[in-house]
């Protein structure tokens, strides 16, 4: 694998709230290399969107961001000026969102909005930009592209709008695309099409893709790497086949038990229905954040639990040295 295009080390996001400080995201580490797909999974509220917005520099001024390292193609994003960030956004790193119905400006045509995305970063005439916009619409599988350019968002279905969003994100041929639950708001049949499209385009364009999703079935099919988040923390990360074959963290295993696997009798719960609730993230945290819900918690879980490397690229935040199997041996 080539050098990572995006490196994130110990990312933290703190939000001042009336009751104190909300430590919404803590200790996030991951890399993505060109041509690679990283899937971030975790139940809703675990900080996946905040993390991706932090990479894009799109957090509001109310949220404090800090990291040991946050770099894109060698550029330190923490030191980058607003102008430098603007030059990167939409150009070398692009993002699509969960809400296709509301993510396009209702006042402008599809063509205007696509052309704008290109013209913000390339010295090109409006007419040429519109030609390229039509090419992009065809690339994302929209027929009658020229007439779509003249339409307004309210004239398009959700699936079409998400395709337009993808076209807009890709129009400058970014090195990194972040797709934050791009299919959650869509019909099931459309979901599969959009995912297929994203994966095809990643291959075709050779960019790095961060795909945030609820759907472990999707992760199994498309991910090169997986990062599992729980309550704002990275609990486990590693190569996809490693995570699926050898899930080490009790939370990851809880998630994987939720998907029906042929030949396995255990019918698990659905994602996000592991018993218990996520603790409040306001104020200082001590110990493992998952321990209230963890079936394997021991007294020592109230201490500091750092992220440890289990195998090459496979890292874990749990007190048990090798995850469950070792834990079972200990208790046996």
């Amino acid at each position, binding site marked *: 694998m080539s050098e990572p295009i995006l490196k994130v080390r110990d990312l933290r996001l703190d939000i001042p709230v009336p009751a104190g400080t909300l430590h919404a995201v803590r200790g996030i580490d991951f890399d993505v290399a060109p041509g690679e797909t990283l899937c971030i999974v975790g139940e809703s509220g675990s900080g996946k969107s905040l993390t991706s917005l932090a990479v894009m520099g799109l957090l509001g001024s109310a949220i404090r961001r800090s990291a040991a390292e946050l770099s894109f193609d060698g550029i330190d994003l923490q030191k980058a000026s607003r102008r430098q960030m603007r*030059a*990167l*956004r939409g*150009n070398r790193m692009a993002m699509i969102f969960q809400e296709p119905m*509301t*993510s396009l*400006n*209702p006042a402008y045509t599809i063509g205007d909005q696509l052309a704008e995305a290109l013209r913000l970063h390339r010295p090109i005439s409006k007419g040429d930009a519109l030609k390229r916009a039509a090419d992009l619409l065809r690339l994302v599988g929209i027929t009658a592209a020229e007439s779509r350019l003249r339409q307004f968002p*309210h004239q398009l279905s959700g699936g079409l709008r998400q395709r337009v969003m993808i076209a*807009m994100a890709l129009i400058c041929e970014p090195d990194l695309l972040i797709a934050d639950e791009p299919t959650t708001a869509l019909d099931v049949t459309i979901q599969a099409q959009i995912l297929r499209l994203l994966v095809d385009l990643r291959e075709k364009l050779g960019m790095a893709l961060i795909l945030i999703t609820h759907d472990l079935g999707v992760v199994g099919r498309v991910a090169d790497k997986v990062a599992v988040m729980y309550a704002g923390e990275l609990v486990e990360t590693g190569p996809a086949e490693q995570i699926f074959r050898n899930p080490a963290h009790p939370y990851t295993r809880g998630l994987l038990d939720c998907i029906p696997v042929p030949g396995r009798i255990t019918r698990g719960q659905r994602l996000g229905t592991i018993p218990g609730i996520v603790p409040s993230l306001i104020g200082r945290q001590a110990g493992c954040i998952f321990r209230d819900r963890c079936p394997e918690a021991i007294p020592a879980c109230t201490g500091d639990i750092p992220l440890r490397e289990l195998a090459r690229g496979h890292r874990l935040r749990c007190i048990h040295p090798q995850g469950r199997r070792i834990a079972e041996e200990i208790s046996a």
Partner: protein
Amino acid sequence: MLGFILKRLGLALLVALTVSFISFSLLYLSGDPATAIAGESANAQDVQAIRELYGFDRPMLVQYFDWLWNALRFDFGQSYYFKLPVADLIADRLGVTMRLGLAAISFALIVAIPLGVVAAMRPNSLIDKLALFLSVAGQAMPSFWFALVLISVFSIKLGLVPASGSTSWRHFILPTVVLGYYAMPAIMRLTRAGMLEVLSSDYIRTARAKGASEGRVMFRHALRNAIIPVVSLAAVQMGFMLGGSIVVESIFALHGAGFLAWESISRNDLPTVQALILVFSMFYIVFTLLADIVNAWLDPRMRAA
């Protein structure tokens, strides 16, 4: 778009017809017009003569259509008081009022919209609080009092601008400020509220994700959408300003249509009052129509409505 305009135009005509009937009925709502014209000392015979002369003895509907037909040709009859054609009187005075109204609404928009935008960009900042204070003060302060304060400072103490008359553009400065200031709070707050709502919307995040500059995000993406309700409000206020400049016109001795309305009401000069109501209403209708058209241009979703 054309269909939309035609639809709105039809609606506007319907409203105009209704308004014209109401302003016509005014003549009867305020008692027997012949008695009013004849004056208190007239005897029954004189009153009857006047009734026949003016055609008040005909059926009301006939009189209405007669009046409407004439009004369409800008013939509103004779003023009871001035003994002049009402149309000439109004034409003479309308220029001043229109100039004042346009200046005042422009002034209000030019000050209030940027203020609303800045307040929304930095909610709860000093500038936001200042804007809020201005709008509260604007609504609490009677306009005659504000006018007197301005006159005493800028005309009497500093001698910068004339206090009364309408002969030069400088005469319009203080009246514009007073009249425009009244419209500012609502425009400012609607702009601020609209911007706050739009700025938290997903498509603004998209614009930023594309790498648009803050100025571009604010004006091209946010204000364009936030301004839509402001256009309608401004049209309504422009309508109010034309009719409601009575106080301002009389303080600054601007002999405009507002002042004429005041004079005519106090003199029971019904044809003039009738015609003024009709003219003001027509302006109101035209402004609302214009606002609808501008909004349809701003908001593509409205064109289908």
